[in-house]
């Protein structure tokens, strides 16, 4: 029951982990949304050479093991890696929240793009012709289709969030689980369990479950709205 006490009393160590998790996953989700939604819309709405290849790569990305993405980013960002040795200020170092944002963005972006594409493709194809007939520009047509697919697009964002907030392997690799710096919910559970500090591990687990639950409730309620409509 000490676990719940930690939550109720807003234990600073616990809420520092929660805050960092939300900051890292929120930023990563922002990036993957900014890239994923336009890409998904473009794949759903246009036909171009290489589209099938891009879709195949996207589907591969959707099923890619996160820990392999973590390994890839680790190798890229390490001091001897192709990006790490450049020492450019925009390229984050390993074992920083920024590196964790990079890896989570890569994990969640195919999900956001893929589900957005599916949502856009689910919109009545004649809708585009109708809105063009009403005088829509290409940009207005795309926006209208995205608005019609809005439930699916929001679900894609929630699915992206769900995939990264509960991910452990990749953030452990590139973040290192450093206290007060890169410790997030999932890596904290691993560490606290190993230490035998089950109360904190359970408290973190409850919060993680709560966040995942909220994401799923939001997704289900939106899907329910689609079926109702």
């Amino acid at each position, binding site marked *: 029951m000490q676990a719940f006490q930690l939550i109720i009393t807003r234990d600073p160590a616990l809420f520092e982990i929660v805050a960092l998790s939300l900051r890292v996953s929120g930023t990563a989700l922002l990036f993957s949304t900014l890239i994923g939604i336009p890409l998904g819309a473009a794949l759903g709405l246009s036909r171009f050479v290489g589209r099938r290849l891009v879709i195949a790569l996207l589907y591969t990305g959707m099923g890619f093991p996160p820990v392999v993405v973590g390994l890839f980013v680790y190798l890229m960002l390490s001091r001897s890696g192709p990006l790490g040795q450049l020492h450019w200020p925009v390229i984050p170092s390993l074992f920083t929240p920024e590196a964790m944002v990079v890896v989570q963005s890569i994990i969640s972006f195919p999900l956001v793009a893929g589900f957005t594409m599916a949502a856009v493709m689910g919109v009545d194809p*004649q809708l585009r012709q109708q809105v063009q007939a009403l*005088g829509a520009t290409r940009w207005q047509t795309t926006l209208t289709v995205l608005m019609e697919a809005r439930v699916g697009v929001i679900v894609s964002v929630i699915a992206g969030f769900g995939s990264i907030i509960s991910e452990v392997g990749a953030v452990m690799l590139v973040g290192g689980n450093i206290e007060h710096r890169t410790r997030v919910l999932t890596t904290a559970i691993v560490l606290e369990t190993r230490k035998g500090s089950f109360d904190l591990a359970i408290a973190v687990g409850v919060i993680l479950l709560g966040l995942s639950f909220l994401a799923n409730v939001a997704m289900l309620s939106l899907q329910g709205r689609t079926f109702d409509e």
Partner: protein
Amino acid sequence: MSDPIYQLRCVTKAYNGRRVLQVNHLDIHRGEIFALVGPSGAGKSTLLRLLNFLEPPTSGRIRFLEAEFGPNQPVPLELRRRVTTVFQRPILLGRNVWANVAYGLRLRGQRDSALQVEMALEQVGLKALARQRARTLSGGEAQRVALARAMVIQPDVLLLDEPTANLDPYNVGLIEDIVREHNRERGTSIVLVTHNVFQAKRLAHRVALLLEGQIIEIADVDVFFEASRDPRTSAFVRGEMVY
């Protein structure tokens, strides 16, 4: 009849090398209701898409208002916005009736459109359903919303692609009245595609028969139905054309 709003010269449309439309000469006048009749696959809807500039012709020239366009010439947005289409199946947005009717005005940057939307809804008899979700409407109501959405933008040309094909006689009558009224009050040119020769007879000033992508005959409505020159027109009008 006044001067032509459309002039089509040697216009063809082909898909994958297969020609589906060949219109050598067609004028559509300002303010008239022009009906295109013909069997399925005759090219009627293709012609409407060309008239709405949704697709370019494969060859030939289309003169609309004061501008002329060929296969590879983009049509300016301002000109494209002076014509619109109501399709056979009303495709409404997943919003309420009001938002659907206001949609075309919003595309044109007209935010303060309440009065126009209200008038358009009144014109189609759906003012009471303004706040209802569009996708919960019956087929007839949905088609009237689609019609209001097209009329509210006050186009120079209104293209109607089988607008009553799936409706019951009551709604067919309502929509025909709305179209007739709109044409009379605003002087909007209307091009009506229909299978239904009786509808063409009730609504149109002039009628054209399209067969296998070609215009067989164009005539004033009385002549078309009573004294057509081409035997195929007579056969189509009498319902003897098997297709």
